[in-house]
Every structure is written in C-alpha cells, then in structure tokens.
C-alpha cells in the first residue's frame, strides 16, 4: 500500500522509507513559527533554564500579531520581550504588526510544498494550503523544537475530503467548512489529517483554499493539507520563487475515510452562538438583529474577504446602529485593498478600519464585545466569551454574509442583497 501526502512528509522528516498510522516517530522540523503570545515570553525562560540557544535562527519565524498594537503596559512589555528575543537569537524573519502569522507565512513565501512546519498556534494548520504538513503545538513543544530542531509525532490517519462542483455566487469556502463542521461536529476529525481534493478545490484561489486548511482546527483535525498544483506553483511564481510540485498521495494510499461533497449544493450559512458546529442556512436565521459586524482574523480578513465585503457594500451604508469593523489579516492585504479601491469602498460604507493583527478574535485587541452585544463575524470560533464578554453572542459567517448583515442590521443570506437567486 502506498502513502498519503501527510505520511510521506513524516517519513521523510523521520528519515525512514515508510510510516504507518499510530506509529510514533521523532522527526526533524524544517520550519518553526512562534508568536508574541505563546512565544518568547513563555519559551525564553525555559531556554535559559536549560542553557540552550535556538538551534537554527534561519528556520524560525517570529510574529508579533496577538498584542499589536499594545493596548496597555502589560501588552507593551510582551512586545518588548518579543523584539528582544529576535535580537538576542538573531531571528531575521521577525514581523511586528505586518499581519497574522498564518497569513504572513503564506504571503512571504516561507513555506514550501513537502515541508514539515510547526507553529505555536492552533491555526498553524492553515499552512497546509501550500502542500506542507503544518502542525500547531503549545509553547513547551515549541521550546523543544527551538532547542533541538526535533519533535515527536504520532502518524495520523488521513481522511480524504473530496469536493466536486463549483460554489455558487455568494457562497464561499467558509460556508463549505462551516457546513462540513456542522455535519460532523467540532470533534468530527480529532487526530485525523484532512486532505482536500477535487475539482471544487482546484478552482479555488489560495486565499479561499486557506480557509479549508485554517478551519481544520475547528473540526479537531491534526491539520489539513492540499497537494500542490498549478495554483500553488503560480502563487510562488508571483512571489518570485521557483518551486517544483511537491509530494502528493499515492494512488493506492490508505485513507481512513472519504467524505464526498458537492460544492454546488452549498448555501451561505452561519454558526450560531456558542458553538461553531451549530450551523444553519443564513436564510433560516430570522428576526436576529446584530449590533456588530466584524471582518477580521486569519480565517476571514485576507484580501479575498475584504473584496467580498466590498462587493456587497459598494455604494451602500451599513444600517443605523450597526458598527462594522474591519481588521485586515495582513499589511499586504490592506495595501492591495487600498490600491484597488476596496478599502475606500469599505470606509465609505461606514466601516471602521482597525489595525492588522489577531484583534478581537481571541478577545485581545480592539473591538472586543461587551455584555449583551450580538456580533456577526468572519472569525472561526464563537465559544462563550471568546471575543470578549461571556454575555455577548457571536454568529460566524463569510465576509459576504457579514457585510450583507451589516447592511440589513440583522442576519441575512447575502444573496438577497447581491441580486443572486437563492
């Protein structure tokens, strides 16, 4: 029997010819990412305690994205520690306030197909969009990687998620992922790797595909992966990087399951408070006023998301009493939105532009919610209290649906304002 893409990457990193699910292997890590929240302030004292240095500063990406810009002196100190770490250990790939780590590693060309990449954040799985095995871990695991360049992995089973057909207008990868998570539950793929294949994946842009891998965290998967193809290669080409197609699954690879989907059957959906697997069509949510609409996070504020929002908002104003906030996922996304009029459209529609970073998604930055507030958001989690007060409510949706709901002042199917027949 052949191997899946995930198995091939683990075998190569373990220095063996073949691995099988449930085996444990020690592997060499190709690239590691840490950020301001779980990174230097937690890891540095442990490195000092062990008397160790960073094994290879050129293989470490350090991103300040959770506490930027500093909201108080505690946050300012965390950022000072982060900068000092970059200097002390000679980490040249250090980004502060340039964007969210998961967006930056894709945009800046740090990843390569076939890489074993680990990051100190649960949404590290996003990186699987470029054909690498991207694994989220905690601070002490990252300490181990930073100190030795190695970690242990249990080989996961792979589930093949086969998406055929095309998403209709006004329907997005976010709607697909919420629908799948709604069907399977938030523990629907615990410890599995989801490999996305099919014509529906092939026609998606890198921005849209990255929602598939990003939200693998929300179904409990170890990670998500998409084998590199022409779209992947052209993404690198645009960055001036020449790459060859990376590894892919063998035709006789052993998949645990196959989950077939027809993209053309998908509709705009929302996840209702306080579970991201409580998913229903947006059209079925009636009489649900919202006071806040939030477009942000690695999941939902890439350039593609800003463009979706602008498409809906163009020439219109958000409803009276609704606050629409946009926190772009990266400076590059913002820059592109500024150069082509997208940002202007958002601001003219009444959006407040917030700084680039994780922002209110984990309840840290600008735009957190107060008691009683009801928000519709492009982020990925709506656990009670996630974005602020435990007495706030968060609906999760695509940028289309969030923008359309901001115009209507209540949760709506965006196709109703886009002139698309439902």
């Amino acid at each position, binding site marked *: 029997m052949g191997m899946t893409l995930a198995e091939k990457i683990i075998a190569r990193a373990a220095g063996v010819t073949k691995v099988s699910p449930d085996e444990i292997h020690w592997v060499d890590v190709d690239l590691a990412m840490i950020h301001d929240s779980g990174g230097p302030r937690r890891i540095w004292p442990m490195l000092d305690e*062990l008397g160790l240095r960073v094994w290879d500063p050129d293989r470490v990406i350090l991103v300040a994205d959770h506490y930027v810009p500093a909201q108080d002196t*505690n946050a300012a100190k965390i950022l000072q520690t982060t900068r000092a770490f970059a200097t002390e250990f000679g980490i040249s790939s250090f980004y502060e306030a340039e964007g969210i780590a998961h967006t930056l590693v894709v945009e800046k060309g740090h990843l390569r197909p076939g890489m074993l990449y680990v990051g100190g954040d649960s949404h590290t799985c996003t990186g699987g969009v470029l054909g690498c095995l991207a694994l989220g871990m*905690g601070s002490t695991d990252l*300490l181990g990687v930073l100190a030795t360049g190695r970690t*242990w992995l249990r080989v996961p089973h792979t589930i093949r998620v086969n998406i055929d057909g095309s998403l209709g207008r006004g329907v997005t990868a976010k709607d697909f992922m919420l629908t799948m998570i709604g069907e399977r539950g*938030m*523990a629907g793929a615990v410890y599995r790797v989801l490999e996305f294949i099919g014509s529906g994946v092939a026609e998606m842009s890198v921005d849209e595909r990255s929602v598939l891998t990003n939200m693998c965290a929300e179904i*409990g998967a170890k990670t998500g992966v998409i084998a590199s193809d022409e779209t992947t290669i052209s993404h690198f080409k645009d960055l001036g990087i020449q790459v060859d197609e990376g590894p892919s699954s063998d035709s006789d690879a052993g998949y645990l399951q196959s989950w077939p989907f027809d993209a053309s059957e998908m509709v705009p959906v929302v996840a209702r408070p306080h579970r991201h697997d409580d998913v229903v069509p947006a059209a079925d949510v009636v009489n649900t006023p919202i006071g806040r609409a939030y477009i942000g996070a690695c999941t939902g504020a890439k350039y593609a998301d800003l463009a979706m929002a602008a498409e809906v908002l163009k020439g219109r104003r958000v409803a009276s009493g609704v606050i629409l906030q946009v926190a772009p996922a990266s400076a590059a996304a913002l820059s592109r939105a500024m150069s082509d009029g997208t940002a202007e459209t958002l601001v003219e529609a009444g959006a407040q532009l917030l700084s680039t970073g994780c922002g209110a998604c984990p*309840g840290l930055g600008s735009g957190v919610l107060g008691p009683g507030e009801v928000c519709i958001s492009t982020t990925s989690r709506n656990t009670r*209290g996630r974005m602020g007060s435990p007495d706030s409510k968060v609906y999760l949706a695509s940028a289309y649906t969030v923008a359309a709901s901001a115009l209507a002042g209540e949760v709506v199917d965006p196709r109703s304002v886009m002139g698309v027949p439902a």
Partner: protein
Amino acid sequence: MKVIEGRVWKFGDDIDTDLIVPGRYLMYDVAEIAGHVMEGTRPGFADLVGRGDVVVAGKNFGSGSSREVAARALREAGVVAVVAKSFSRIFFRNSINVGLVPVECEEADVIEESQTVRIDIDRGEVIIIETEERLVAKSLPSEVAAIMEAGGLVDFLRIRIGDDTT
C-alpha cells in the same frame, strides 16, 4: 508511573481552551491565571478545586486554541490529572509537557462529581473508589510516557542533554 488518587470535578463535552482560560487573562502570569481557571464554563471553580484533584470530562477536552496555559493553569490550581473520553491533540501534548496527566477513558461518563478515582496508567485502568467500578483507560506509548515520567518536556530535555555531555 505512580498511581494517582483524587477527588473528581465533572465537566461535559467540548470544553475548549477559551473556556478553561478565557483570552482576556492570557497576558498574565500562570499563578494569576490559575485563579480564573475554568471560569468560562464554571465561574468560581478556582476557589473550589484543591491540591490533588482530578478533572473528568467528555469528548474533545481542551480543543481550540493551543494556549499551553490552559494545562498549566489546571496544574497550578492543584489538578493532577484529567480523565476524558477524548482529548484535543494539542492539549494532550501540552499536558504531557507540563506534567498534567491526560487519561483517555471512553467510559469516563459513568464517573460522577465528588467521587474519588484511582488512576493506574501503567495498568490502563481508572477505579471509582465508591463503587469499585474498573474502567479501561489507554496507557501512554513508551516514547510519551518517558517525557511524562521525567516530569515534562523541560526535564526530559535536561536529562537528554546531560546524557549527551557525559
């Protein structure tokens, strides 16, 4: 590994790390965060829990954010082990690394709040003292047990570095 015996605090399915340690506390030290542990799902828990206690939960314990302080805060608050039907893999790894014993037990549902459980990882069992029921638990793979037995990943690395230099 040594046998653990402790009083039970019972939780449900899908207890994610935002519920264990809400994001608004992330900027503080572990000692301070421990005073708010489980606040997202049971406010006041930090005042109730004591040294040597055990958390019992349903499936997918510790899902969501990778924040290691979720495992550290439970440990700091006195919890020595978490018995759950299943764990999120990041939380499972974090627990091993910080010395909080994660026990996978598919029958965890039958354990009730305030009972006392005896956990013998090596024998793969959880015993409810009051009812003498014996539940099957997964034992840890030897590679992982080695980290746990060292006291966590930092101590494991310290030992390995020591080995390399001798």
